[in-house]
């Protein structure tokens, strides 16, 4: 069995599972996938019932979680910043609703990086089009910042 076959069949090509260790917010609410190839950086997940709100559609909190992670991963990879960057501000517009079975994908555009701040735009989409628009301001720590370990990728 090769590594790739460990992923569910409905995960789009190029995406790899982000395998966080322990019981944290990411491991409890995922699984989340990362694509990083040919200059394209994207995060994604498949909507399950467990990601939905009492109305049975994708929970806004789950969308905002992916948007927050997309701003962090996207800015870190695209701007080459290997520090943990805490979020300072985020603004979200809920453009559409997501349904069980949808593949949600997040992409990030880095607008500006200063000595201490990074500004990014995030868009989440499904096969039906735009789902959530977000903007983010991230803090770049002056020293090493908080210690952390990048999660391994599987698939």
């Amino acid at each position, binding site marked *: 069995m090769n590594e790739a076959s460990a992923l569910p069949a409905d995960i789009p090509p190029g995406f790899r599972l982000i395998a966080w260790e322990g019981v944290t917010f990411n491991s409890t609410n995922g699984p989340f996938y990362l694509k990083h190839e040919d200059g394209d950086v994207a995060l994604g997940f498949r909507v399950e019932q467990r990601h939905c709100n009492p109305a049975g559609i994708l929970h806004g909190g789950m969308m905002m*979680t992916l948007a927050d992670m997309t701003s962090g991963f996207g800015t870190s990879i695209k701007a080459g910043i290997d520090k943990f960057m805490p979020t300072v501000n985020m603004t979200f517009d809920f453009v559409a609703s997501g349904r069980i079975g949808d593949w949600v994908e997040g992409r990030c555009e880095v607008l500006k990086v200063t000595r201490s701040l990074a500004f990014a735009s995030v868009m989440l989409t499904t096969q039906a089009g735009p789902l959530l628009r977000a903007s983010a301001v991230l803090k770049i720590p002056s020293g090493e910042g908080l210690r952390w370990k990048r999660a391994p990728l599987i698939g």
Partner: protein
Amino acid sequence: MIARFDPAAANPPPGFDPIRHGENFNSHAGPFFYRATKDSFVTGFRIMAHHLNPVGMIHGGMSVVFADMSLGLGLAIKCDVPIFTPTVNLTVDFLAGGKLGAWVESDVKVIRRTRSMLFGETLLTADGTPFLRCSGVMKIPASNAMHFDYGALFPQLKAVGYQPPAS
């Protein structure tokens, strides 16, 4: 799989009861709590291990999950709109990092209610210190809205004779 976390393990302050939200995203993002008096409605949760990010602080996603839930619920209760009100916009400032074990609380302020929209804001505190500032806009659906029985979901409201200020 939906992970469930024991509300008692969160050790809420006196007067806070668990919010019964059924089997959904809130089950593993929570447990969430509420406390009502005659003229107040406050929500809260304890920061636990399953709310943390890779650096051991509260995950930004978790902070906005609670901000969104508390704002939507607080506006619905305070404006006496017992239906599902989807979030249209949310803006959050992350004022401080939240530490494991801290008790987070939200007391929503109603800014304006129109026929089709709810505008509100809330300042979340962690162990009494400002933690996250949030403002948001919720849509009141015209029809086919999902209705909630707040009397059954939040027994404290009836028990304390809660009166919505903005109705």
